[in-house]
């Protein structure tokens, strides 16, 4: 709930209002609504339309209370809706608990709400957790006067799909408009609206425009009746059969609190948790609906080793540990590629494994295009720092987005920015190739920038009075900025000169934790620079080893190159999709070229298919762990399901290390956490910045701009077909000139190949084309080329 009664220190400065509710004196901050003030004295006034994060409407009238004294000595002549009325000094309020007038008013409303309700609780998904049902049971009439007088209910055809995922049962709807208000106020996707009028009023869509919002599932959760259901969960279980466990969403770097409902060892659904500091009460549809990937048919369940005939065969855990250790020992120089989805504890294990068991700094979590500039930036500017928080976004005067499309890449940031901009507190400026729908919904200002020119655009912010970048600003740089030379350096410079806060927003849940854990060639855990002898000694001491490798490691691209050059023989790969990497073909070649590959994976993949040893790892539902948000905020979670055979990466790495004759010093998440705690953050010098000069590297030709849409072909959305059906279709965004010349279907050809997709007009430069990174085929990196590279366009019919 949003009411804070004020801590003792705040109480003095907050304007408090004194009133009496049901005979109990209470003091609450000025402007508190009665319905929430009543909660302070322990009275829950029933409500349907009210929601603390939505603007008050007073539509359902369920929360009527009697006010014998409005604070001016005079009564309100009629019961008042407590969800719209702010407290007043000296006010006297009587709720249903003490006032027969309020009680009768509420009973009357409840009766009205039920006359047209189908009362189909036994077959309704909401049955058992339904505010309407609960309220009817506790305050409703036993017998219906409506049916006693021959009343005829309003009926509608049973549920209609308002998207591939969301179904609407209009008969159950009490027209509280929480869903339509959420869509308009919070998500900015007003694709559902109230239609018709009076008793025929209903929620609906325009038939050609389904409710395809990245946040649509929140409407199901806040629906106070069973009117909105998901195709994914409908008729699957009863709430009283479910066990609920809190957790943290694994699909982005936002760290959203979720609630996982499970039954007999199986996740049945996921809901948003409530964390005012992070995601408030909202999550993305991906966080809500994308979890069946963990139950996919290709899920690995036992270790495998490659047999003499070249095929993989099942193996026992001890055998697999032994084979892996032997293979790595024989391979000579080995390297570690972790991907960005590991928990901080697992990342810590990979980091230590590389240094202690393999004796190398060749480790990188960045399974994506990267740069040396970024490597340096992460060490000098990101690790150990809390650059900005969600609250900072809300209070900032200006937020600059560079290389970041929050709606697609960081949903909770998008919603928080929307909240801030709607409250007229914050202005958003985006350095991007075109004005996205997401930016429009933030009322943001575009600095149209061709890929490659981001650094110059960032530098221009400073001299530009209009943008007003100062210490009340926040600059959010996305991980994509890594490939724009000089851009991260320029962002640092702007932040330093203006006093603005600077935060790095990666795409994946494990990215920031991996930085903290030292899954980088230049960083040890806790921000210890590899290049700093004191830092190495400090880490070695904690770990009880004589020393750590001194040579700076190779980054992911260099590791791939080194394998292909025969300089590195062994690879430990945990959760990397080759098609996500900067050069998928090179990565695949490296897998073939490597003398020994150990794969830690959840499901069969292009890596496991060629690996020499394959270890199944636990999905997040089966293990405890910590994700670190883009803010640097740790988000620990415990295992949701208890599956003894499902081992976290760190347990497997410990097993291999032991076979290699070293010990990681932990076998469980708890032990790893204890060691991380013991090690703590580095309190010595940070790695020195190595700025890269800003320069225009954009090509005179047509440049490829891209990012991943939230819903796309990502493997963690596998098995959630209803969700995928709500994804935005892949289109090439081109200028009107290009469209007129080449549309409506365009072939984009890069150095790695071509894709043909429908074209859509955007306010974008003639020499830039935008494509979604992973919405067709194997994705752009595999099939077209790198972001920012030169491509050619032609009409598909030519």
């Amino acid at each position: 709930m949003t009411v804070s009664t004020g801590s003792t220190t705040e109480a003095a400065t907050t304007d408090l209002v004194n009133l009496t509710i049901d005979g109990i004196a209470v003091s609450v901050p000025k402007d508190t609504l009665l319905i929430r003030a009543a909660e302070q004295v322990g009275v829950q006034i029933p409500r349907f339309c009210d929601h603390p994060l939505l603007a008050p409407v007073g539509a359902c009238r369920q929360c009527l209370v009697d006010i014998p004294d409005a604070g001016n000595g005079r009564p309100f002549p009629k019961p008042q809706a407590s969800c719209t009325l702010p407290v007043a000094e000296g006010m006297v309020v009587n709720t249903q608990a003490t006032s027969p007038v309020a009680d009768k008013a509420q009973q009357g409303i409840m009766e009205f709400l039920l006359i047209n309700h189908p009362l189909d609780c036994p077959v309704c998904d909401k049955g058992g957790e339904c505010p309407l049902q609960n309220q009817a049971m506790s305050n409703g009439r036993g017998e219906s006067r409506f049916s006693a007088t021959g009343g005829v209910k309003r009926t509608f055809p049973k549920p209609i799909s308002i998207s591939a995922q969301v179904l609407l049962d209009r008969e159950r709807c009490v027209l509280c408009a929480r869903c339509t208000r959420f869509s308009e106020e919070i998500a900015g996707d007003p694709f559902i609206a109230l239609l018709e009028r009076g008793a025929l009023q209903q929620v609906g869509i325009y038939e050609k425009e389904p409710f395809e919002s990245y946040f649509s599932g929140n409407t199901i959760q806040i629906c106070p009746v069973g009117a909105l259901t998901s195709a994914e969960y409908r008729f699957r279980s009863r709430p009283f059969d479910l066990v609920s466990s809190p957790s943290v969403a694994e699909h982005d770097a936002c760290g959203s609190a979720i609630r996982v409902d499970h039954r007999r060892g199986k996740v049945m659904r996921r809901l948003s948790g409530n964390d005012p500091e992070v995601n408030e009460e909202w999550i993305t549809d991906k966080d809500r609906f994308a979890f069946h990937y963990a139950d996919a048919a290709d899920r690995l369940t036992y270790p495998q080793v490659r047999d003499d005939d070249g095929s993989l065969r099942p193996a026992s855990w001890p055998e697999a540990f032994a084979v892996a250790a032997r293979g790595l020992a024989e391979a000579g120089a080995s390297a570690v590629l972790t991907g960005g989805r590991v928990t901080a504890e697992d990342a810590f294990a990979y980091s230590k494994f590389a240094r202690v068991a393999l004796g190398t700094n060749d480790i990188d979590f960045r399974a994506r295009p990267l740069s040396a500039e970024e490597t340096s930036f992460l060490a000098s500017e990101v690790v150990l720092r809390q650059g900005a928080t969600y609250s900072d976004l809300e209070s900032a005067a200006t937020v600059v987005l560079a290389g970041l499309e929050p709606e697609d890449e960081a949903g909770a940031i998008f919603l928080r920015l929307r909240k801030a901009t709607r409250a007229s507190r914050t202005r958003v400026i985006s350095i991007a190739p075109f004005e996205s729908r997401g930016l429009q919904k933030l009322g943001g200002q575009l600095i149209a920038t061709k890929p490659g020119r981001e650094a110059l655009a960032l530098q221009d912010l400073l001299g530009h009075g209009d943008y007003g970048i100062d210490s009340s600003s926040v600059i959010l740089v996305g991980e994509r900025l890594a490939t724009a030379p000089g851009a991260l350096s320029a962002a640092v410079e702007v932040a330093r000169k203006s006093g603005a806060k600077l935060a790095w927003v990666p795409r994946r849940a494990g990215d920031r934790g991996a930085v903290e854990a030292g899954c980088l060639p230049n960083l040890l855990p806790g921000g210890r620079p590899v290049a700093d002898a004191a830092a190495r000694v400090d880490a070695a001491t904690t770990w009880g080893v004589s020393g750590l490798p001194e040579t700076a490691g190779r980054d992911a691209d260099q590791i791939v190159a080194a394998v292909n050059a025969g300089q590195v023989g062994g690879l430990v790969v945990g959760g990397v999709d080759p098609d996500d990497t900067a050069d998928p073909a090179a990565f695949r070649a490296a897998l073939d070229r490597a003398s020994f590959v150990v794969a830690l994976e959840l499901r069969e993949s292009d890596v496991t298919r060629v690996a020499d040893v394959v270890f199944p790892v636990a999905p997040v539902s089966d293990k405890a762990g910590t994700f670190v948000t883009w803010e640097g905020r740790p988000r620990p979670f415990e295992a949701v399901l208890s599956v003894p055979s499902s081992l976290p990466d760190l347990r497997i790495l410990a097993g291999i290390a032991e076979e290699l004759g070293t010990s990681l010093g932990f076998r469980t998440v708890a032990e790893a956490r204890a060691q991380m705690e013991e090690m703590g953050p580095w309190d010595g010098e940070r790695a020195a910045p190595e700025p890269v000069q800003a320069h225009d590297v954009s090509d005179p030709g047509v440049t490829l701009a891209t990012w991943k849409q939230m819903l796309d072909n990502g493997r963690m959305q596998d098995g959630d077909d209803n969700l995928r059906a709500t994804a935005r279709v892949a289109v090439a965004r081109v200028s009107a000139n290009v469209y007129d010349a080449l549309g409506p279907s365009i072939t984009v050809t890069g150095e790695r190949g071509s894709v043909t997709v429908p074209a859509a007009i955007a306010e974008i430069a003639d020499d830039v084309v935008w494509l979604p990174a992973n919405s067709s085929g194997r994705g752009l990196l595999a099939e077209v080329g790198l972001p920012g590279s030169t491509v050619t366009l032609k009409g598909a019919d030519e």
Partner: protein
Amino acid sequence: MTDTLTPVLTDSWDTERAWTLPAYESRGGYGALRKALGMEPGAIVEAVKESGLRGRGGAGFPTGMKWSFIPQDNPKPKYLVVNADESEPGTCKDIPLMMANPHVLVEGVIISSFAIRANKAFIYIRGEVLHVIRRVQAAVAEAYAAGHLGQDIHGSGYDLDVIVHAGAGAYICGEETALLEGLEGRRGQPRLRPPFPAVAGLYASPTVINNVESIASVPSIIEHGHEWFASMGTEKSKGYGIFSLSGHVANPGQFEAPLGITLRELIDLAGGIRDGHQLKFWTPGGSSTPLLTDEHLDVPLDFEGVAGVGSMLGTRALQIFDETTCVVRATLRWTEFYKHESCGKCTPCREGTWWLVQVLSRLEQGVGSESDLDLLLDQCDNIAGRSFCALADGAAAPIQSSIKFFRDEYIAHLTHGGCPFDPAASTLFATSGALA
């Protein structure tokens, strides 16, 4: 002593081409505007306050006071919106006024906008009155051409634009915040108050919303002075107003009289109840005002007088029904109207009117029991005063008042097994034959 009838707004209605600017100006029209432009805006507000003019759209809120709520230190633009969405059943005064004398409204709009320092005004006319819309559109165009509207009106430095806006069929848009929603291109559902329109109305800017007749009364107040206006009417209900008599009187029509005239006087003026019949029940101010009967013929028709007998003056829409009319049928039909016009926003109105119609329909068909009357009254109790806006209070009014005065007639439907009345007997053509 004031005369029985005091035609001011209606006075020109029998003029040749009364709706045109020349006709209006030939009678001194736009003289008040010139006078007003020479006054301080605050003085105009003061004059309207002093006149005692109360809102003619039904609620009777003092017009000058409403104007004075506009925060003049608010930097946002101010707006005047004329509520010409006349839709309350029985109400039929603004429509003939705008058809015959649109310029008095336009002149009133200019003076009122000047008083509240608005540079943009809107006239929101219900869409279902095409010819009235034509007349107001034309009047506004003529006023522009004559320099009464536009930039630097008559060299005063004051600018005003007026937009004539056609509604599209929604009774609820007569509610001022629902009207604003309609004017903003949205569903006409009432808004939460506060903030009140005077602070955050159209486009969240300070806005005055006044009824047609209220605004049209302003030129006469400026022209003749507030004392002149206040010399008519009663102590707390000053001035003149248009009284609309309809139904079973010999000569239905419009009667512009000082507030406080009685129905007995008005029926006399209208030639009495139609031949051979007697008054049975009537509405003082539209269907949302509780019914009255022949007991109330001498109640002064002013805000206090009608309130004193448990009803409301409303829009002075006097619908007269004689003894041939079935009160249950009348009530059912009104209830169906409220159900049809309920905007759907709040539960008691949306669901309550749905249910009321069902119970009343059964009673009208003679089905049910006497306890259904108590059920109806209990439903009304759960609707009235519990809803978001006053529409539902209006829905309850005819039911509550008809049961109060005609409980026996409801019961007669049950004992008779249906309606005991002959609907043909109450038609206009039952006795007089077709009117050509």
